[in-house]
C-alpha cells in the first residue's frame, strides 16, 4: 500500500475540501477519514485508483455509467402510469466500502436476525408461544395489516421457510455503530437494482472493478434460483416458476421485469393466473399451464380476493387455499408481512433470548411502542420530543414539533384512542460517507442507507432449532438520503463493496447477455396477456408512424404554401387525412377588408401551424403523445420480451416525446417527426431481428400490418375519391407518406398516373407497402397462429383475410383505369376499397376473440365493505 503522502496534490485538495465540508462535527463518524483526518485503510486502494483516474476521468466515467443506466431503462415510477413521472437515479461512481472485519460482524448479525424472524413467524402462525407466554403483546400482532388470520388456520401444509428472500435496511450512526432500521419480508425490492448497478459500474470503471478485492455477487441469484426451484411441490423437475407483479403501474416494475428476465421466470399479473382443480395455472396461448412456484411481488392483503382483501383486483381467487394445500409454493409465504412491524424492534432482544436463547447481535432502532402504558405516558407527556409512525403507514414520519397546535392535539387524541398503533422514535444521527456529485465535480460527505439481502436455503438446515441456513448477499444497494428515507425518494444510489480478505476471481455474472436477449418462453407458453400487448405494440407503433408521416407532410405543405389561398393547397386534404378540423375561417369577412392581404395570410399560417403543433401536446386519443403513451404502456407490460437494444430506442423515443410540447417552429417539428419515424423503424427493425419468430413476434406483426393496411386504404380513399384538390401534388404526398415515392420514380420513371399508383399500392405483391403484399403476409402469419381447438374449420380471422384477398384478386382492372375522368371508375374503386376495409376492420376483434384472455374480472358473491 502506498504512503498517503504519495497521493497527488489534486486528491489532497479533494480530501481537504471533503474535510472542510464535514464542518465542525469532527467527532462524528465518517466512513472515509478517521478522527485524525487520515484516510481509513479500507479506502486506501480505492482512493489510489481514483487518484489515478483523475477528476476528469471520474466525471467522464460517471457520465458513461449514467448513460448506461438510462439506456438500460432503469426507472421506477411511483404508482403512476405517466411517462413524465418515471424517474431514474443518479449512480454514484464511488461505492460504499465495508471492511472484511465489519462484514464478518454484520453477516453474523444478519444471519441471526433472519433466523430469528423465521422462527418467530413460524411460532406466530403456529403455536403462538410468544403471545401465550407474554413475550409479545397480542395487540401488537393482531392490529398489524401484515397479520393474516387466514394464514393462521390449522391444516396448513407449510413445511418450508416462510421468508425465502428478505431485505434488511442498515445504517451506521454518528458513533460508528451499525443499526438495523427495518426488515422487508414480503417482496423485498433492490436485488435487481443492486446487480444492475454493479454491472453498469463495472463496465464504466472496468479497471477499478477488475482489480478490486471485492466479494462478487454472481453466486447469490443462482442460489436464489435454486432455492425457489426446490420449493416446488413434490420436488417437480424443471418447475414452472412465475414472478407475480402488480403490473407496469407499480413502482418496482422495472425490477420485476429485470428479475424475471435474468432468472428466466414468466412475468405474470394476477389475471394471468387461475386456480383450477386445486392448483394454480397460467393462461397461455396453448391453454392452462400448471405453476409450481410463485415469486410474488404483491403485498400480503392483495393476493387473494376470496380470503384476503375482497376488493383486490391484483390477486388470484383461491390462491391462499392452493398454498394451504401445498399445491403451489409462494415465496415469500403469505402472512410474513407482520414481521415488518416497526414496533417489533423493541421486542427483538427479548424474543432472541426467548426463541434462540442467545443475545441479539445486531441492534435495531431504539423505538418505544405506545401500546405499553408507561411508554405511552412518557411519549404523551413530551410529544414534541418524539417522532412517531403509525403501524399502517410506516413510511410516513409524524413530527409533532413541526405541527400546529390543532394537528398535534388531533395526533394526541389518536394516540390515546389506539396507543398500540403507534411507535415513537428519536431522529437518527447518521455517519457520513463520501459521495461524488457529477454536477459540481465535488466529493462531499453524505448520509447513506444500506439494504442487504438474506436468503433462506431450504435444503440446508442450521443445527439449532431446524431453522434454515441463511446466506447474506455480499453487497447490496446503498442510497444517499437521511436514514429511514425510502429508496424511491432518494436521488442517488451507490454500489456496496464488501472487501474480501483474499482476492476473488472475477466470476462473470456480469457477462449478462450483451447482445439481444433471446426470449425462450415464447411458444405455446406465452401468456395470452403478453400476446395481446405485443399485438397492440404493433398497432399503436404503426399508427404512430403513419400519423407522424402525415404530420410531416402537412408541415412541409404548410411551410411551402401555407400563405396561399387555402383552397389552392393540399392542407385541407391533409387535415382530413389527419382527421383534424381546419381553423374556422375568420368569422369576419368584414374584418379582412380592414386587413391587408399579407396580414390575413400570416394570420392563417399561424392558425394552421398552431393546430398542427398543438398535436404535439394534445392529450386526446390519436394525438401523438397519446399514441406514444399507449405504445409505451404496452411495451412496459412486456418489458421482459423486448431486447435491450429495442428497449433503448424506446427510451430515446421517450426523450423525444418529452421535448415535443416545447417545439415552436414548423421546421423543428418536421425534424422531430423524422426522428420519431426513424426511431420507430429502428425499434421494429430490432424487434424483428432479435425476437424469435414465434407467436409473440407474429402477433406484433399482425398488429402492425393490419394497422398499416387500413391506413393505406384510407389514404387511397382520400387521394382518389374524396379529395378536394386531387391531382399530382396530392398523389405525390400519398406516395411520400407511405415511403413509396422513390420506388415509383425508379419503376415508372415518369409522371404520376393514378393507374400506376394503384398498381403499386394495391396490387403489386412484391412491394412491401402494397395492400396485396400485406394481405399475403397477414395470411401467412395467421396460418401459423396456434389453434386452440382442433376444429377442421378455418378461424374467423383466416376467413376475413380470404375475403379481402379475393375482392382484391377478382376486381376487374379495366373498370379502374380511367379514374381521372370517369365517375364509374371512381365508384368501382370506392366499392373495392370498402370491400377491403370491412374485413380488415373486423380482423382486430377476431384475433382478439380467438387468442386473448377474456376472463371477466372475478367478483364477490357478497361484498363486505368493512375496514380491513
Amino acid at each position, binding site marked *: 500500500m502506498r504512503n498517503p503522502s504519495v497521493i497527488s496534490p489534486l486528491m489532497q485538495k479533494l480530501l481537504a475540501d471533503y474535510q472542510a465540508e464535514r464542518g465542525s462535527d469532527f467527532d462524528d463518524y465518517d466512513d472515509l477519514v478517521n478522527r485524525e483526518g487520515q484516510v481509513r485503510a479500507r479506502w486506501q486502494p480505492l482512493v489510489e485508483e481514483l487518484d489515478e483516474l483523475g477528476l476528469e476521468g471520474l466525471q467522464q466515467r460517471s457520465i458513461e455509467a449514467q448513460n448506461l443506466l438510462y439506456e438500460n431503462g432503469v426507472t421506477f415510477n411511483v404508482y403512476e402510469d405517466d411517462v413524465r413521472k418515471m424517474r431514474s437515479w443518479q449512480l454514484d461512481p464511488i461505492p460504499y466500502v465495508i471492511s472484511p472485519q465489519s462484514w464478518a460482524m454484520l453477516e453474523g448479525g444478519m444471519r441471526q436476525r433472519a433466523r430469528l424472524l423465521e422462527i418467530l413467524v413460524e411460532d406466530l402462525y403456529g403455536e403462538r408461544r410468544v403471545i401465550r407466554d407474554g413475550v409479545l403483546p397480542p*395487540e401488537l400482532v393482531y392490529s398489524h395489516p401484515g397479520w393474516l388470520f387466514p394464514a393462521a388456520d390449522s391444516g396448513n401444509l407449510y413445511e418450508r421457510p416462510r421468508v425465502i428472500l428478505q431485505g434488511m435496511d442498515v445504517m451506521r450512526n454518528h458513533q460508528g455503530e451499525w443499526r438495523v432500521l427495518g426488515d422487508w419480508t414480503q417482496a423485498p425490492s433492490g436485488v435487481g437494482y443492486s446487480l444492475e448497478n454493479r454491472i453498469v459500474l463495472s463496465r464504466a470503471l472496468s479497471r477499478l472493478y477488475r482489480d478490486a478485492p471485492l466479494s462478487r455477487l454472481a453466486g447469490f441469484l443462482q442460489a436464489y434460483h435454486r432455492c425457489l426451484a426446490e420449493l416446488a411441490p413434490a420436488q417437480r423437475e424443471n418447475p414452472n416458476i412465475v414472478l407475480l407483479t402488480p403490473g407496469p403501474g407499480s413502482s418496482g416494475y422495472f425490477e420485476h421485469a429485470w428479475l424475471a428476465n435474468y432468472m428466466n421466470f414468466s412475468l405474470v399479473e394476477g389475471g394471468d393466473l387461475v386456480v*383450477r382443480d386445486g392448483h394454480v395455472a397460467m393462461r397461455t396461448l396453448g391453454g392452462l399451464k400448471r405453476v409450481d412456484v410463485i415469486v410474488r411481488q404483491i403485498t400480503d392483503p392483495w393476493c387473494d380476493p376470496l380470503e384476503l382483501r375482497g376488493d383486490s383486483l391484483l390477486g388470484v381467487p383461491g390462491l391462499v387455499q392452493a398454498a394451504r394445500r401445498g399445491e403451489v409454493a409462494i415465496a415469500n409465504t403469505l402472512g410474513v408481512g407482520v414481521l415488518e412491524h416497526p414496533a417489533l424492534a423493541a421486542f427483538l432482544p427479548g424474543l432472541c433470548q426467548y426463541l434462540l436463547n442467545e443475545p441479539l447481535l445486531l441492534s435495531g432502532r431504539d423505538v418505544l411502542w405506545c401500546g405499553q402504558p408507561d411508554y405511552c405516558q412518557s411519549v404523551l407527556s413530551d410529544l414534541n420530543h418524539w417522532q412517531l409512525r403509525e403501524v399502517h403507514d410506516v413510511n410516513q414520519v409524524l413530527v409533532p414539533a413541526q405541527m400546529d397546535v390543532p394537528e398535534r392535539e388531533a395526533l394526541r387524541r389518536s394516540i390515546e384512542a389506539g396507543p398500540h398503533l403507534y411507535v415513537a422514535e428519536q431522529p437518527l444521527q447518521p455517519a457520513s460517507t463520501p459521495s461524488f456529485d457529477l454536477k459540481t465535480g465535488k466529493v462531499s460527505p453524505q448520509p447513506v442507507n444500506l439494504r442487504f439481502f438474506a436468503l433462506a436455503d431450504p435444503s440446508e438446515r442450521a443445527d439449532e432449532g431446524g431453522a434454515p441456513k441463511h446466506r447474506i448477499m455480499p453487497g447490496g444497494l446503498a442510497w444517499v438520503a437521511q436514514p429511514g428515507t425510502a429508496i424511491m425518494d432518494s436521488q442517488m444510489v451507490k454500489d456496496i463493496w464488501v472487501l474480501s480478505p483474499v482476492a476473488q476471481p472475477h466470476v462473470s455474472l456480469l457477462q449478462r447477455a450483451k447482445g439481444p436477449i433471446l426470449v425462450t418462453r415464447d411458444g405455446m407458453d406465452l401468456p395470452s396477456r403478453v400476446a395481446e400487448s405485443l399485438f397492440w405494440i404493433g398497432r399503436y407503433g404503426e399508427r404512430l408512424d403513419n400519423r407522424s408521416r402525415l404530420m410531416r407532410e402537412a408541415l412541409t405543405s404548410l411551410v411551402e404554401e401555407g400563405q396561399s389561398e387555402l383552397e389552392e393547397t393540399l392542407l385541407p386534404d391533409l387535415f382530413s387525412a389527419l382527421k383534424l378540423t381546419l381553423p374556422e375561417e375568420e368569422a369576419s369577412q368584414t374584418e379582412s377588408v380592414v386587413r391587408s392581404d399579407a396580414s390575413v395570410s400570416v394570420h392563417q399560417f399561424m392558425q394552421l401551424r398552431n393546430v398542427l403543433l398543438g398535436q404535439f401536446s394534445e392529450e386526446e386519443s390519436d394525438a401523438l403523445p397519446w399514441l406514444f403513451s399507449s405504445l409505451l404502456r404496452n411495451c412496459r407490460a412486456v418489458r421482459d420480451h423486448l431486447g435491450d437494444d429495442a428497449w433503448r430506442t424506446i427510451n430515446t423515443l421517450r426523450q423525444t416525446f418529452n421535448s415535443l410540447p416545447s417545439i415552436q417552429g414548423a421546421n423543428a417539428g418536421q425534424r422531430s417527426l423524422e426522428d420519431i419515424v426513424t426511431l420507430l423503424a429502428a425499434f421494429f427493425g430490432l424487434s424483428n431481428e432479435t425476437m424469435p419468430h414465434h407467436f409473440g413476434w407474429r402477433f406484433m406483426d399482425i398488429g402492425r400490418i393490419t394497422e398499416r393496411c387500413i391506413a393505406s386504404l384510407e389514404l387511397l380513399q382520400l387521394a382518389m375519391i374524396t379529395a378536394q384538390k386531387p391531382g399530382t401534388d396530392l398523389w405525390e404526398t400519398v406516395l411520400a407518406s407511405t415511403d413509396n415515392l422513390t420506388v415509383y420514380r425508379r419503376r415508372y420513371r415518369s409522371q404520376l398516373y393514378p393507374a400506376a399508383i394503384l398498381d403499386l399500392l394495391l396490387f403489386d405483391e412484391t412491394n412491401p407497402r402494397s395492400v396485396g403484399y400485406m394481405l399475403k403476409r397477414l395470411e401467412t402469419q395467421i396460418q401459423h397462429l396456434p389453434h386452440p381447438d382442433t376444429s377442421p374449420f378455418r378461424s374467423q380471422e383466416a376467413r376475413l383475410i380470404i375475403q379481402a384477398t379475393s375482392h382484391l384478386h377478382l376486381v376487374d382492372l379495366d373498370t379502374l383505369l380511367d379514374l381521372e375522368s370517369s365517375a364509374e371508375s371512381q365508384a368501382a374503386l370506392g366499392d373495392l376499397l370498402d370491400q377491403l376495409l370491412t374485413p380488415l376492420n373486423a380482423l382486430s376483434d377476431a384475433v382478439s376473440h380467438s387468442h386473448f384472455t377474456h376472463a371477466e374480472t372475478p367478483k364477490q*358473491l357478497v361484498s*363486505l*365493505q368493512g375496514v380491513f
Partner: protein
Amino acid sequence: MKYQLRHTTRYDYSSPVSLSHNEARLLLRDLPWQHCSNTRLIIKPAPLRQHERKDFFGNRVVYFAIADIHESLEVTVLSKVTTQARPQPDVNSMAWEQAVQSLAPGTVQFDAADNEENLAARLYTLNSPFIRRSEALRDFAQAHFTPGRSLVEAVLAMNCSIFEEFTYDQEFSTLATPLDEVLENRKGVCQDFAHLAIGALRSIGLAARYVSGYLETLPPPGQEKLLGADASHAWLSVYLPGWGWFDIDPTNGNQPNERYLTLAWGRDYADVTPLKGVMNGGGAHELEVAVDVLPI
C-alpha cells in the same frame, strides 16, 4: 333440547358462472353444551374440490370450488343438534373496572393459567373490520357501566336497554350499516345490535366477540309452525376474566339458552360470513334462504 337443523342458501344468477371459489362457515361448532351429529353439507352443483379446515377462531370452514358452468348455487346443511343448559356466572363476582384492568396491556392480575386466557381475550378488545371503537359508543356504554358496578350486572343492563330502546327494522339495515347510524337512528337487525353491543364494550376496554347461529322461533299461540320461517341469528359473547365467555342477545334482551344453536364466532360478521365466494361471470343474482330449527 334436540333439534333437526336445516339451512338452505340458494343463489340464482342472471348469467352463467364458469368458475367459482367459495368458503362456507355453515357447520356448527361442538361445545360443552352443544353436540352435533349426522351433519351433512350438500352443495349443488357438485364441487370439483372440497376441503374442510378450522380457522383461527376454531370455526369449521369448508372451501369448495365449482368448475362446471352453472346458473345457480345451492348449499344445504342438515344436522341433529342436542343442546343443554349453559353455565351461569356469579352476578357479583367482579366490578367491571377490575375486568378492564386485567385486560389492559402491561398488567398481570391473575395466576398464570388465567393470564393466558386474558391474553387470548385481548384480541377481542381491538378494532375489527366492521367495528371501530368510538367516543359515542363509549358514552353509550357508560350509561350502564357506572363506577363500581358489577360486570355481569352492567352487561345485562346494557343488553336489556338495547332490546328496549332500539327497533328491529329489516328495511333500515344493509350488510354494512355503520355503527354510528345504528346508534343515531336506534334501528337495525340482530347483526347491527350485536355489533353495537360489541363496539360499546370494546370502547370501555372490555373484550367481546360476535356469535352467529340459529334460534328456534315459536309460532304465535294456537298456530302451526311454518316451515322455513326460522332465521339465522346473531348475538355476542362478553369475556368475564377468570370465568370465561358469557353470551347475551341484545335483539331479544335475554341470555342465549337451550333454544340457541351456536354456529361460529369471530371478531365481527366479517370473520363468520356464512357463505362467500368469488366467481367469474354470474351477472346479477337473487338470493333465497330457508332455515328450519325443528324440535324432535
